[in-house]
Every structure is written in C-alpha cells, then in structure tokens.
C-alpha cells in the first residue's frame, strides 16, 4: 500500500508556487478519510479529520512542493534559460530529463565552462527540442516551472526516485489518515506549499489554523554513505528519526518527547536526529502567532536534492505507525 501511494504522489509535478496539480491529486487521495478540505492563497492543501471533543488540534504538515527550475527567458534558437526554485546548484541536474506541468519534456544542459566550479545557474539551459523562439513559445512561457522527470527504482525495501523530499512524507500522511479511525486528537493535515523557497506555506497555514501542536513530516539526510559529510548519526532503514534540532528550529521538548514516547508505545525503532544544516516547516509553525509547540518526524533519505533520493519503505511505514500512536493517545 505504501509503495502504491508513494508511486502515485511521486509521479505528479508541483514545483514550489505551482502546486495545483499535486494538490488536486492529494485531495482526491485523502477525501474519503477527512471531514473538510480547502486550499488557501499560498496554495496549501488543508485537510481536517475531526477527533474527540477533549482532544487537541494537531497540525501534521508534509510539504507537497518540490525543487525545480523556473524559465526566466527564451532565446532566439528556442533554448530556455532558467533559475533554480529551491536550494540546489548549477551542476545538480545536468544531463537529466525534466518535465513541465503541461507534459512538455526537456533536457538540462549548460554552456561550456572551462572551470566547472565556476558554472553558474545563469549558464544552465533547458533544450525542449525547439528550433526557434516561436516554436518554444508555443509550448512554454516565461515563469513556467519544470521538475526532474519521474523515474523510480524499487530495490526491495529501499526505493530511489526524485522528489522523495517530501512526497515520501505526503505518502506517510495519507497512510496515516487512512489508519486513524477516528483519532482522539483532531488532525489538521497540511500538504504545504512553497516549503523549498523558505517554509512559506506552513507559516500561513499555521496562522490560519492556530493548532495546539505542529508536527512537520519531512525527509532528513543520513550519515551512512561513503564519505558522508557532515558527520551524522541517522541511518537509512533504522526507523523514523525524531528531530532534536536543525538550523531552523529546536523541537519543542514536549513534542519531541511525545514522539519518542509514541515510538516506544507502538514498538517501532526510532533515531534521534541532529541536523547541522537545513530546516523544516516546524520552524515556521513554531514561530507563528504567539508561538506553537512544534517538532519534526523525519524520514531518513540519502542523496537529498538529487534525482536519486533514496528512502526505506519500512522507515516510512513505521513513521505512519508512530504518528498514529501519537494521535491516538
């Protein structure tokens, strides 16, 4: 089930700011399991599953946007110049196939630069097979976004694909909503927009919902690959990681400890995570309005922000189990 859900949500485009299609897909998937669904000005998909009257209101937030390119100009020969949406360098996707929301495919390449280290995003372009500006403009407008084409490798328990960040978490939240019947706490499942450009969606969703507790579900890096830098204790396949801190937030101790207690109660392994870079929607939620207790449950993921982001299905399933336990009590 988890693999099927994952495959469905991975195959749909949704670069930050252009989340309409993935939002529609997610809405279809969760509609049978929630009481209310809406979108907001930032593009967030906000789904509410009601709990008991004496339960808390818990925002469970997985971002649905993905990193990608935005077209900044089209030259006379039909090449598309681009800028990155979200954090990645000019080398990241060279030689890869990308797709636009309207189905147009292209390949990413860069101007020939003698010293590769000096390559800038201004040198990167997308070739969509057009031979003139006019032909390119029939398919693509300035401001359109593209993401690395969906391609998945199922090794067994481990699965590699682009956009595990953060569709793996979207799949976990979908499976969580299916499993909760009904939860003790009201679950506000937010599939947030524009996380990759600065946790923007989570900020407005949290302000609108003013939950009692916020939990971001996101991927985190691992320290278990050859020469992994910086040093990090999280391993792939060793269970969900309860975030202690990252650059954007220090998890509220009560939320962090609640997640650990839920792992123990549910009998799933967990890891303690300290990430020395990056951040999640928890940082935005935590500092919204008068401050909201918030933490992050992380899915270990190798090669984040590359076309081969790799996760473990068991880690994902255990994440859903842990969250269900947390929301039950």
């Amino acid at each position, binding site marked *: 089930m988890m693999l099927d859900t994952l495959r469905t949500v991975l195959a749909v485009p949704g670069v*930050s*700011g252009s989340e309409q299609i993935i939002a529609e897909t997610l809405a279809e998937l969760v509609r049978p399991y929630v009481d209310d669904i809406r979108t907001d000005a930032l593009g967030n998909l906000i789904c509410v599953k009601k709990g008991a009257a004496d339960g808390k209101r818990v925002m469970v937030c997985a971002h649905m946007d993905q990193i990608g390119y*935005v077209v900044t*100009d089209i030259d006379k020969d039909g090449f598309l110049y681009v*800028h990155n949406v979200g954090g990645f360098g000019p080398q990241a996707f060279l030689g890869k196939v990308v797709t636009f929301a309207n189905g147009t495919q292209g390949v990413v390449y860069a101007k020939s630069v003698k010293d590769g280290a000096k390559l800038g995003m201004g040198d990167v372009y997308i070739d969509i097979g057009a031979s003139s500006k006019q032909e390119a403009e029939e398919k693509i407008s300035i401001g359109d976004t593209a993401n690395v084409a969906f391609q998945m490798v199922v090794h067994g328990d481990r699965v590699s694909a682009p956009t595990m960040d953060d569709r793996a978490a979207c799949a976990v939240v979908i499976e969580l909503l299916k499993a909760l019947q009904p939860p003790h706490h009201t679950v506000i499942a937010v599939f947030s927009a524009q996380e990759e450009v600065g946790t923007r969606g989570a*900020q407005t969703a949290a*302000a*609108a919902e003013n939950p009692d507790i916020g939990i971001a579900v996101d991927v985190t890096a691992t320290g278990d690959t050859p020469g992994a830098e910086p040093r990090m204790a999280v391993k792939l396949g060793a269970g969900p990681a309860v975030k202690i801190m990252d650059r954007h937030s220090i998890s509220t101790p009560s939320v962090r400890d609640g997640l650990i207690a839920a792992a123990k109660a549910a009998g799933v392994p967990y890891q303690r995570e300290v990430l020395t870079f990056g951040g999640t929607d928890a940082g935005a939620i935590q500092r919204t309005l008068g401050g909201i207790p918030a933490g992050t449950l992380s899915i270990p993921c190798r090669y984040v922000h590359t076309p081969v982001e790799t996760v473990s299905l068991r880690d994902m399933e255990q994440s859903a189990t842990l969250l269900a336990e947390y929301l039950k009590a």
Partner: protein
Amino acid sequence: MRLERLTLLEELLNARGVSGDEGEIRKLIGELCAKRGARTITDALGNIIAYKEKPGAKRVMLDAHMDEVGFLITGADANGTLKYQPVGGIDPRVVISKRVEIGKDRVPGVIGVKPIHISTKDDMENALKHKDLRIDIGAKDAAEAERFCPAGSYASFVSPPTRFGEERIVSRALDDRVGCLALLAALESDLPVDLICAFTAQEEVGLRGALVAAKRIRPDIGIALEGTTCNDLGDVSSEKQVVALGKGVAISFMDNSSIAHPKLRAALTDCAEVNGIAHQIKRGVAGGNDAGAIQRAYSGCPTATLSVPCRYIHSANSVANLSDIESQSELVIAFLRDFAQYEGRIFE
C-alpha cells in the same frame, strides 16, 4: 506624462527618507494623501497607511515603500572624517566621489578617495569597500565632526531629479518613489474596492514596514508597486537583462521574497493586454520586495508585483522612463477599476 504628475514625482524625489529616517517623505506623503481625501494613520514602524474605504468590497492593499537606500554615520576619525554603514544594499563602487547630505540640517559631505597620482596599481585594480571609505564634511577634527554629525545621523545622496532625454528622468530614490506616485494616483481615482495604500518604511532593510502594515490591514489582495533592476545596456544577453527601459511596467513571476499568485498575475497580464498598457515580464528572480511580507502576514493573501524598470538602481543616479512610470499607474488603476471582472477567477 502630464506636467502636474511630473511635478508631483519630482516633489516625492526631493524629499528624503533613508530606511528608519522616513520623517521628511512621510510628512509630504501624509499631506498629499489628505489632499486626496484619504484618512491616514502612521504606525509604530513609521508606515503611513491611507484608507479610501468601501465597506463590503474586497480589501486591496497597494504597497509602495517610501524609504530609500542611504547611509548611517557610525562615528568620526581623529582627522574629522566620518565612518558610515550603508543602509540597504549599496555597491561600494558607486559611492566614490559622490556628494551626500547628512542629518536634518543637510550638512554637505563627500565620499572621497585618494587621487589617481598616488594610487598604486593594486589600488586601481581592487574595489574599495565601505569600511575603507569615509565621508568628508570639512571638519578639522573628530570633535567638530561629531558636533555637526553625531553617530546615528543619516545621510543620503545629493542628486536631485533631472529630466533626461525626451522621456526619461534621472534621480536618486526612483526606487520606490515611482510606486508612491502610483499609490497617489490610485487615491485620486474612485475605485470599486476597499482601498488601502501603504507607504511603507524600512523595505530596504528587510521588508520590515510592510510586514506590520499587512498584519494591521489584513488584505484580501496585495499588490507591490516597485522599482526594479534593469540591465539592458551593452552586450548583455537577453536572459541577463531582467527588463528593458521603455517597454512598459514589469510583471514578476517570482523573486527571492515571493512567488506571485498565479491567478492574480494572469489577471494583471490580461488587464494590461485588454487595455493596451505596455508591459513586460520580469525575466529574472533576483531581489525581493514587500509582496513577500504581505503574502505571508497571518493566513496570507494573493500578491503580485508591478515594477518600473530602473537602470543604475540603488545608486545616486537611477534612470527610469516616464512612459514606464505611467504604465505602472495605468495598470494598477485599470485593474482595480475593472476588479469585478477579475475577482471571480482570482478567488475561485
């Protein structure tokens, strides 16, 4: 551009208002808003917010920042020259040998450098940094300098607005007095929206004024009227030019602070096309503006940015086309005039 509007623009450009020291421009704008029958308030950050209320209609926040980049005096050296910090992003290469004026009394100063005769090859090849530069106000020692310009005094470029060619203007602070002009034009018009014009403070130091203004206003829609980067000279390839002077108001799809609301952006583009208003797409994502703060205040709202291309922006002498300045005002007014036509598709 009508003479009356040009005179008004020049009046806006002549008033000073470095971020955090917006008193002079705020006073002028307050008077201009009152003349247009708008109720105004000034808030704790120094924003001035003008209301033309239509209860029941959609609440539209138009935003232009009234602050400008400049300098903050941080102390004097023994020789009487002043140390300073830039306020907002100023390339140290553009300040050398420029005249500035400091404080309420407009004490004249100049940012001097050592003459070419005694500059070494190394000096010539390496750009000076702000920390290496000083403002000379003619004082003989630190005591005299501090008497006239104590630490904490603000300074701005001296470069009054000047007509430039047949249809251009050169001045400091075009970013964003052009937007202020557009807001004043909107206040003159009878528009079928609950109109709130925020002339914001401290944009150049991080969209600070707009954030609290938007929280006070809680708009249904926000539009930032801006001046933006224009790099259209020389052999710069198209994708690096961003926008071109004289080709109309620039509509942004994304910058460092926000991604424009797709439906609002499309509606503004359609409005420009239907009304034959010159417009262009901003072909770049550098920079950021108040739309980013407005978009994310509380539960957020759709935002977009309409900009006037400004060559040499954030310098003493930025250059804009009068026709682009007009296009910016025309587009925002046409859009709000016909708002009923677009409202449904933005909020569907």
